[in-house]
């Protein structure tokens, strides 16, 4: 690799590793405040119990589970996108693959906490591991998530090794000694010898393959938690693939949003171009079409079957929840399709707006999968108080939701201080291929 080119890459892609700007502290401080508010909410919940949330005997899963599914979906989508881009050696992957990998790990670090917020007797959590019943989809999910956590961490680390070695050897960078030491340890003495390169490439390929398989299985398991129950709206054979498609939809949306944010903040216009947005936009378009097809198929069969409880649920979705339904399943699907289908509209801003809409719509989609079903139990609700019949999230739930988003941002910011957000080694490899 040309040393001038590498210096240029290091200069462009590691601005926060060398020094921390004031704006970094300001943004981090704001996110920290949001996080602290969430912690205050959590203390209230632990102190007073779940009565401070909107959850009651019937709607026992609310915004927390919505967030759990949402973050886990982002994680699996990150894994699917990064694994696929890597395995298929997609030519334009270099600037975006690291972001996808980070989405995988960071979302996975946040998602499961929302399960803990949902559980009333946290001290009983270890029983799941101590006395597992492997017939239970909950146990499948715990095993799957634990497996995924290790897999995603190894995948991310393996993809970082070359960049750690580059940063270790970068003499022009003004890096704190502890960071240098960290890069030296984490790079495992990698110097790019043919044998090391071969082993590393093999390992990355293995992990990319595994991470794709695990993402599909684990998110299907999550879907089966709903699908294997007989609850109206959940008991569906297509929930596994439907959830996986939905996850990729939201994950691609988030990837586009992060690309736009980091492109703007770190001035990466040279590396993350319109081409990347359009390519991912087309992925978003295709996935939106599939997602729309699955959604239509799921609701059509339920509606046509006219089973009493399904009918009540669908009536509810088109009356009480119609605004959510229209946003999640019409605006959220059709807007990205519309924007990306028309070449003239394919600008970075428009594609980013389409991604924001897709992401928000997917969150709302999860909400209308969870809440209306729980408000439609087979056995009549044994209480007529309004908050027992109708779920409505409280400030505690919103504060913890906001805290989850804040932690997502904070972790991305912390990672940007420790390692490049765009993979230097991938860009070098892409440059070498272009030169050939």
């Amino acid at each position, binding site marked *: 690799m040309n040393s001038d080119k590498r210096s240029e890459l290091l200069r462009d892609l590691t601005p926060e590793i060398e020094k921390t700007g004031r704006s970094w502290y300001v943004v981090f401080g704001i996110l920290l405040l949001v996080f602290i508010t969430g912690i205050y909410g959590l203390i209230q919940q632990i102190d007073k119990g779940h009565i401070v949330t909107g959850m009651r005997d019937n709607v026992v899963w609310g915004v927390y589970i919505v967030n759990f599914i949402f973050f886990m979906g982002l994680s699996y989508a990150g894994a699917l996108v990064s694994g696929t881009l890597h395995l298929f050696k997609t030519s334009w992957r270099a600037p975006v693959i690291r972001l996808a990998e980070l989405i995988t790990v960071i979302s996975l670090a946040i998602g499961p906490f929302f399960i803990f917020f949902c559980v009333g007797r946290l001290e009983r959590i270890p029983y799941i591991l101590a006395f597992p*019943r*492997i*017939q239970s989809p909950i146990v*499948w999910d715990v*095993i799957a998530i634990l*497996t995924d956590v*290790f*897999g995603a961490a*190894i995948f991310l680390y*393996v993809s970082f*090794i070359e960049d750690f070695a580059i940063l270790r050897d970068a003499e022009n960078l003004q890096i704190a000694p502890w960071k240098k030491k960290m890069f030296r340890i984490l790079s*495992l*003495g*990698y*110097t790019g*010898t043919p*044998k*090391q390169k071969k*082993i*590393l490439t*093999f*390992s990355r390929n*293995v*992990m990319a393959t*595994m991470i794709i*398989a*695990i993402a599909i*299985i684990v998110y299907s398991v999550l879907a089966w938690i709903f699908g294997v129950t007989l609850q109206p709206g959940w008991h569906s054979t297509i929930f596994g693939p439907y959830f996986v498609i939905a996850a990729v939809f939201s994950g691609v949306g988030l990837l586009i949003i992060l690309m736009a944010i980091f492109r703007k903040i770190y001035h990466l216009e040279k590396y993350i171009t*319109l081409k990347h947005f359009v390519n991912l936009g087309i992925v978003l378009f295709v996935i939106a079409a599939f997602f729309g097809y699955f959604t239509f198929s799921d609701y059509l069969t339920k509606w046509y079957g006219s089973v009493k409880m399904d009918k*009540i649920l669908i009536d509810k979705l088109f*009356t*009480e*929840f119609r*605004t*959510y339904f*229209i*946003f999640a399943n019409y*605006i959220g699907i059709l807007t990205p399709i519309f924007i990306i289908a028309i070449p*003239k*509209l*394919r*600008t*970075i*801003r*428009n594609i980013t*707006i389409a991604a924001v*809409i897709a992401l*928000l719509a997917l969150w*709302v989609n999860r909400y209308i999968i969870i809440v209306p079903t729980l408000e*439609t139990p087979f*056995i*009549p*609700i*044994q*209480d*007529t108080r309004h908050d027992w019949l*109708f779920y*409505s999230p409280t400030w505690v739930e919103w504060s913890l939701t906001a805290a989850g988003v804040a932690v997502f941002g904070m972790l991305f910011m912390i990672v940007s201080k420790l390692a490049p957000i765009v993979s230097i080694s991938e860009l070098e490899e892409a440059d070498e291929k272009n030169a050939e």
Partner: protein
Amino acid sequence: MNKVPLKQTLITLLIILGTVSNASAFPVQETKISPYMLFTYLKDSDSRKILQVKMTNITQTGEKPLPGLRIGFYNNENLLEEVITDASGNAAHIISDSTILLKADDGSWFFTAVFDGDSITDATSGELSILDVDIEMKLTEEDGERIVTLSATAPGADGPVPVKGEEIGVYVPRMFSLLPVSTGLLDENGFFRAKFPENIPGDSLGNLTVIGRFNENYFYGSVEKREVTAWGTRAEKSSPVYRSLWSTLAPKWMVVTLAIMLLGVWGHYTLVVINLIRIKKESRKKKD
């Protein structure tokens, strides 16, 4: 790159925000609830006389209990007690022995239960006319057979008078309701005899509760006598464990599938970790 005016972007976002903010509105219930009142009378095994009300709202999704409603229990025009319905929509008044109940000409008591209505629930009421009656129950074994003998008497001018021709039954309480063991009519002397089966499960000692009962009788309401006896079969302390979805042992195919998947995945993880160690070793070799 094609530029899109900021105004256009903001309008798009405003539409989205407007859509989402509207979504928080919940429908408000506009029509009043028309409650259903189930008013019953029970004379229990301790001869306590209990007036019971269950208030429910019958909807498309089934019966929903109505808690927090004030129910007035009356004997003729005399208020006995006002009771608030509980979470299950139930309210009950136990008539104390010291209460003097007014009787009609035929010797029956006339009870009413009244809910006066409130801002969200319509008023409703129920009425019962009850003749007092007593039940006696004897459990005996004759020639190896278990016999339940029920007799019923009503108070008369010259002492207790046998109740004739009314349906009475022997029951055993199960998890959700009373299991009818035998039902029939009282004979001329006010007696009913029933053979008790030998195969009804009891607890671990074989104990079960036998109930002799008028069940929601038109004249007498529900009147019962209970007795615990060891006429049941003994419940097994432990049942055999077999592999199934609902037992403590998972089906074999499930265990095998999970094991293969976990071994496959964690095997690959191990392989990659070994490779990372090899990379480290390779760098040491190079240094040497």
